[in-house]
């Protein structure tokens, strides 16, 4: 337990240090996701963030290149619209502090590779390099098509009272994967709409009941006068653990409001249709509200229901099927890159 607290302290220290770096504390980009960390709006930029609903830490970097001179014609430009990226996320059922354990990622780590193309349907610049603006209001429209390929590794301790006593506590290794295709468009710098489809291997760990107990091992000494009692705390999940392949269709919409004051805010609504091969489709929907004060920590709160129509859950009360989460995002601080 001491190690856990120590890491937690280090994490807080790191975050405070990162946030106090003046000069990097600019506006936060709206990065919008649900409790499972899913989003159709993939923002191609670097960040480090924490999502408390699924207790994850995320790191993301996107390589993108601005337009350069066309090697064949000096008057034209080459637009360099492809980009690629990487995202690493660690999540822990027991809280953020347990993501790293003795130097290993546990119990849940995921990594994704991205490949994308921007300005697919809406050009941002023409071949001579002039901005392309749309409509009578002369606004810019930007779009991205992103393909994501990811893998996930997790380890869970499970408890099953129906098994023989010695086998009631056991561990399960989960190896998941995801392939996602997302398209999103940003209109006039304020409205963004994204659609996505993904196929992934998932588990039902979120639906299992966390159990916590102390286990004692009693070893009597041969002389019969002394007894040693070893005690350890076990955190496990109780219930039938299953994995399945699911198709998820998602829609996200964001409205970013930038009044004349320094405080910007955004509304996010999202909807998911989750369809596993052997069960009924599940509708998930939610809404988020995010604040982006200039030069300060930014974040937001979101509320979502994981089963809108009560297709599979055993909780008839709608209010009890609502989850509330917090998201805090911060820009990557300088990583020691020297000035040229």
């Amino acid at each position: 337990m001491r190690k856990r607290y120590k890491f937690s302290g280090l994490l807080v220290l790191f975050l405070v240090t990162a946030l106090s770096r003046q000069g990097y504390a600019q506006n936060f980009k709206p990065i919008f996701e649900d409790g499972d960390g899913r989003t159709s709006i993939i923002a191609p930029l670097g960040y480090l963030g924490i999502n408390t609903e699924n207790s994850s830490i995320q790191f993301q970097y996107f390589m993108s290149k601005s337009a350069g001179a066309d090697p064949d014609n000096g008057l034209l430009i080459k637009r360099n619209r492809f980009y690629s990226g990487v995202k690493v996320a660690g999540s822990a059922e027991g809280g953020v502090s347990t993501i790293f354990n003795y130097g290993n990622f546990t119990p849940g780590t995921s990594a994704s590779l991205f490949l994308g193309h921007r300005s697919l349907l809406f050009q941002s610049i023409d071949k001579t390099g002039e901005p392309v603006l749309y409509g009578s209001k002369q606004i810019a429209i930007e779009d991205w098509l992103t393909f994501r390929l990811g893998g996930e590794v997790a380890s869970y301790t499970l408890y099953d009272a129906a098994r023989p006593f010695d086998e009631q506590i056991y561990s399960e290794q989960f190896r998941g994967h995801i392939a996602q295709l997302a398209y999103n468009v940003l209109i006039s710098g304020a409205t963004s709409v994204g659609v996505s489809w993904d196929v992934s291997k998932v588990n039902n760990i979120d639906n299992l009941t966390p159990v916590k107990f102390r286990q004692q091992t009693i070893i009597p000494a041969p002389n019969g006068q002394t007894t040693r009692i070893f005690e350890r705390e076990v955190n496990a999940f109780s219930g039938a653990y299953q994995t399945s392949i699911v198709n998820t269709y998602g829609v996200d919409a964001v409205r970013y409001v930038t009044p004349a004051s320094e405080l910007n805010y955004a509304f996010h609504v999202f909807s998911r249709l989750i369809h596993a091969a052997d069960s009924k489709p599940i509708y998930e929907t939610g809404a988020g509200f995010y604040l982006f004060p200039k030069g300060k920590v930014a974040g937001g709160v979101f509320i979502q229901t994981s089963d809108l129509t009560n297709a599979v859950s055993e909780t008839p009360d709608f209010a009890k099927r609502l989850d509330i989460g917090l998201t805090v995002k911060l820009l990557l601080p300088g990583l020691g890159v020297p000035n040229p």
Partner: protein
Amino acid sequence: MAKTYKVSVELSTEATLQLFRLEGFAIALVRTLDNTYRIVLQEFPIEDELDFYVHCTGWNKTPWNLKIFIDDKDITPESIHGEIEKGYSAVRGSINFLQDQHAQAV
């Protein structure tokens, strides 16, 4: 013939940099880990003033900041900056760095 200089460029922004020009040349910049685009150009020819052009797209109110160093001297003590409006920001300008150098020498 224009004199050549070592030119270093740092453009910090969370927005997408679409196009950056120096003296009319389109120069491809790559985003680094801290959302800053950087490049160093050796022996870059400059006529009198240094003309620049920045075109970014992204979420509104996203700022961008441009720093330029010529022969390792910061010629942008007050950084050149802009902000996204209606989804974009396109700014053209020029820096009379020779006059600055002369003025400082005097």
